[in-house]
Structure formats: C-alpha cells, structure tokens
C-alpha cells in the first residue's frame, strides 16, 4: 500500500535531495579541502618546516592557532600543508584501483567462463584478508613510503571495484539492449564500453566516494605506523605519531590533525551519501 502511494511522487523531488543540509555541508567541506590542498601557502601563516627554538610546545594561542610542537613548528600550518598530501591520497589511492578494477570487472563480467571462475577464486583469496593487513604486508616487502603505499593500496583495492563492476555488468547483461547490441553486430568492446558500462558505473561511482574517505583513513593509519608518508613530511597520520610522545603535555599536537581527518572524511562520505540517494531508484 505504502509503496503504491510513493510511486505517485513527482520527479522533481529527486533533485531536492541535493539541497539537504548533510549534502551541502559535505560539498562545503570537500570544496574547502580541495582549495586548501591546492593553495596551502595562501592559508598557512608559517612555513611548516621552520624550526623555532623559542616557542617550543606552546599551547594554542592567537599567534599559533593550533600551538607549536617540540621543534617549534606551527601546528596549524603543518595541518594545512598536510591537506595536499592527504587529499592527494584520496584520489591517487583510489583512481588506479578503480580503473584497473572497472576494466577487469567489465571483461570478466561480460565474458564469464573460465576467466570468471579464476577471478572469483582470486577475489575470495584476497577478500579473505583484512585490507589493512594486506596493504601493510605489501608495503613491508616494498619498503615504507608514499609511492609504495599507493602501489600497495591499488594492488589490493582493485579487487573490490572489479567485484562490484562484474556484478553490475552481469546484471546489465540480462537487459534486452545488450542482446540487441549483439544482434546488430556491434563489437564486444563497443558493447561493453559504450553501452553496458555507463549504466553499470553508477554504483561504482558511489562506492568510489566512500572509498576516498576510507583511503584517507587508511593512508593516515599507515602514516601513523610509519609505513606511509615519512616524517618530517606533514601528513595527518605522521603528525599524530609525532605528537604521540607528548600527548599528555602537548595534547594539541595529536588532537588537531585527527580532527582534520574526521572532518575531511565526513565531507567525502556526506557527498557520497547524497550521490547515492540521487542515484537510487525511487519507490
């Protein structure tokens, strides 16, 4: 009864989704994060690497909004400069995994057969393990560092995109237009990339947004553990690790970068939710 009634809703309300406060807040956060990432020197009052032996471990003040650390570096500036690294993380750590995953997933989903069987077993083997553990293992083999971290995350992460894409493609194959394409003699590549993919890509995009938030969490965790970005580079996880030794006396050193992580992650996931709501079929 209820669903029958809901189907009577007019179409324009779909766009109203975008005006919801959650989504708008998310967009605002994302937008400002990207600005900060692109123009850190405009917004950071101090040089993030400048030592200042006079003002060591100062609590937050008018001059140093987030205080200073044990080497006199301004925490606020360091957190701002870290935006470049962490926002970059969100994109680089995900985009390659997405590309590889979408390609493999489409091919496997379309052709099926043995390729699909092998793919399935590979997926099972990789998903069996906690993502973090696998990434740490790969980084351990390759050695710590940002680039190796990206490689590790891509190496493990593509599977999730591929699995999603495969499921979507297989779902689309049931639709008539795919069969119609074959009947009309389109090449396989054309069918996959021009017809099936645009329809199947929507859930992947939604997942990508969530994944970006997760990438920041993962990247900063690795930074904290010393496996990702390396000190003295300003990265939120690294900053938290640096502040850990002084946490009872200079709590602001670890607290502030963490807040940046939470806020930015929130931004990505709010936008992701909004996009998901928009894409979801009504009723």
């Amino acid at each position, binding site marked *: *009864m*209820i669903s*029958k*009634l*809901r189907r*009577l*809703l*007019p179409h324009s*309300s779909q766009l109203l989704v975008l005006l919801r406060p959650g989504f708008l807040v998310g967009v605002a956060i994302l937008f400002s994060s990207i600005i900060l990432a692109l123009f850190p020197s405009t917004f950071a009052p101090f040089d993030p690497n400048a030592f200042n032996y006079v003002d060591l471990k100062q609590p937050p003040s008018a001059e140093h909004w987030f205080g200073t650390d044990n080497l006199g570096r301004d925490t606020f500036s360091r957190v701002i400069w870290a935006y470049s690294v962490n926002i970059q993380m969100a994109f680089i750590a995900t985009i390659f995994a997405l590309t590889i995953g979408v390609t493999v997933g489409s091919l496997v989903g379309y052709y099926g057969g043995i390729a699909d069987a092998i793919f399935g077993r590979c997926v099972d083997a990789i998903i069996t393990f906690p993502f973090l553990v696998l990434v740490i293992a790969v980084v351990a083999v390759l050695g710590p560092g940002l680039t190796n971290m990206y490689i590790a995350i891509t190496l493990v992460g593509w599977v999730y995109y591929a699995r999603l894409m495969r499921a979507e493609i297989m779902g689309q194959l049931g639709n008539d237009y795919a069969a119609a394409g074959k009947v009309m003699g389109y090449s396989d590549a054309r069918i996959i990339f021009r017809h099936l993919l645009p329809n199947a890509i929507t859930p992947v995009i939604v997942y990508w947004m969530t994944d970006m938030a997760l990438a920041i969490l993962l990247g900063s965790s690795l930074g904290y553990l010393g496996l990702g970005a390396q000190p003295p580079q300003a990265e939120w996880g690294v900053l938290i690790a640096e502040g850990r030794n002084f946490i009872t006396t200079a709590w602001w050193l670890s607290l502030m970068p963490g807040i940046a992580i939470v806020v930015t992650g929130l931004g990505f996931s709010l936008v992701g939710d909004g996009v998901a709501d928009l894409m979801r079929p009504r009723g």
Partner: protein
Amino acid sequence: MTNNNKSALQVSGLSTSFDIGGKPLKAVDDVSFVVEQGEVLGIVGESGSGKSITLRSILGLARRYGTVSGSVKWQDQELVTMPEKELRKIRGKEIAMIFQEPMSSLNPLLTVGLQIGENLSAHTDLDKPARLARSIELLEKVGIPDAANRLDDFPHQFSGGMRQRVMIAIALASNPKLLLADEPTTALDVTIQKQILKLITDLSSELGMSVILVTHDLGVAAQTCNRLAVMYGGKLVETGDTKSVISNPQHRYTEGLLRSVPENVEPRTQLYSLPGTPPSLANLPIGCAFAPRCAHATSDCEAGKPALVGEAHKVACFNAATPVQARPGVAL
C-alpha cells in the same frame, strides 16, 4: 439516517488522505455504507480506486500513515477515534482482515503454528495445549490436509492457495464477526480462486460472519456477494443488491465493467474494454472522477461531484442510466 439494529458495521463519511511530498492525496473520499450481520458485501473497483485503503481505514491501519476522518461504527463503538490500545482488542478478535499476497503477508521466519497461536494468545485465555488443538482445528476447517504436522512448517513450504487458507485460518482464530478480505484471490490461479471464494462464503454462512470482499473482478463479486459497492476515484459510485446492480447498472462505470466481462461473447469478436485509464488519486479532477472517460458526460459532471442518492439501489451520477429521484433529506 437509516438506523438498522441488525447492521454490524456502519461507515459514514469515511475519508482518508495522505500527505505525499507536500500534496494531499485523497484515497478515500466521503465513503458511506452499511454491512448487515451475516452478509457478504463486495467493494469493486480498479487498482488505485481506494478500496484497499477503505478496508485498512476501517481497522485503523491507515491512520499511522495519513489522516482518517468520518465515522466507522462497530456495535455502537466508534472506531475512527478509538485509541490504539482498545482498537487492538477488536482487531483480530471481532474484526479480522486478510490480505492480498499471502507470501508477503505471512512472516517468512515464523512457523504457521506460531502465527496462528499468537492470535490466540493475544485474544483468548487458552493455554498452550488448548491453543495447539484450536490451531489444528482451524487448519482443518480451512481445508489443509495433515494439519497437525503442518503446524511446524514455514509459509514458503505451502503453495499459494494453501497460504491463503492459512491466512484465513489465522483470521478466524478468535471467531471474528466481520472479515475484511482485501483481494484474497487476485494472486491465485483461477481454479484455486473458486475454492478460496467458496471457502469464504461457506464460512460466512456457517459462522454467521459478515464479510467485506474487496476485488477488482466484478465477476468474482457477482458470484459471491449479496450486495455490491462500486468504487471509483476514491468514491462510491453505485451500491445495491447484487442482482439489481448487475441486471440494471445505473452508473456508466458499472456498465462499462459489466460489458468488459467476457461472458456469452461471440467467438472472434473484439473484447470490450473501458476507454481511458483510471485517474491518479493525486490528480483527481474537481468534478466527477469518471467524467473524462464517460460518453454521457455533461458540463455538470465537470463542475462538481455527484452525491450518492437512491433507496436500496444508490448511484452517484448526474446522468444515471435510469435517473433516480433525489429526495431531500435522504443521504443514505
């Protein structure tokens, strides 16, 4: 106002509207009818005519989603304004309801025995062994073979027709005096349909139970009901004895429905279907809802909605087939 001591249910001016995305949707518009004790009343209409919601409004199931106004009198108690707590004592016990889709109306995770038993627990003082015995008795009464062993089965282990029988068994558990049946046979095969309908009418005469049967199939209604009420666009457009309505339809819609039933039609002739489509309840016209599809519509019909007038056989139409003399003061 007709005040019949024998009538079990009196519905007056029942209206139910929902607020969907800011727009009010009047699903049930000023509906009035009476159900006598022991009679089978059929409410006939297409999907989206508001007939299911009428039933749910009677039992108070619609008010958590929308606004219900008007009056529903059951044995001198007013149901529309009754608090939920007291309404629960009537639901399942004095008035029972069965739904259209037995697969989605029965909880797939619970055994059939439990779903019958909880009705008994809520409304009777029977202890466990007594409930068990009664459950078996009920399943046998609705014609389920090997009843004792089937109590521990789950809904998906029954066929469609059997599931509907289980629903009826659950509904009958506490000997209700009125059964609301919301399209109970629509989801079933034609042969099973006949069986279920027969079951319902047999139970009605055996137990003296009144039934309101909602259906979109005029043929079904004609075969099983004592009286008919035809609904369109949320309003009742014609009511009366089945014989009278079928042999002498007053409303053009009822006429159309009757013509659409393919009986005694010459082979290879085109079947008749009503032109046009039923209106969306969110976009009802100001005038008569049927006017856009009616061959006999006049300017009156677009200006305002006709009232339901007449004696035993009532119709709501400005241009009824046999014009009914509307006498002032006679509303129902």
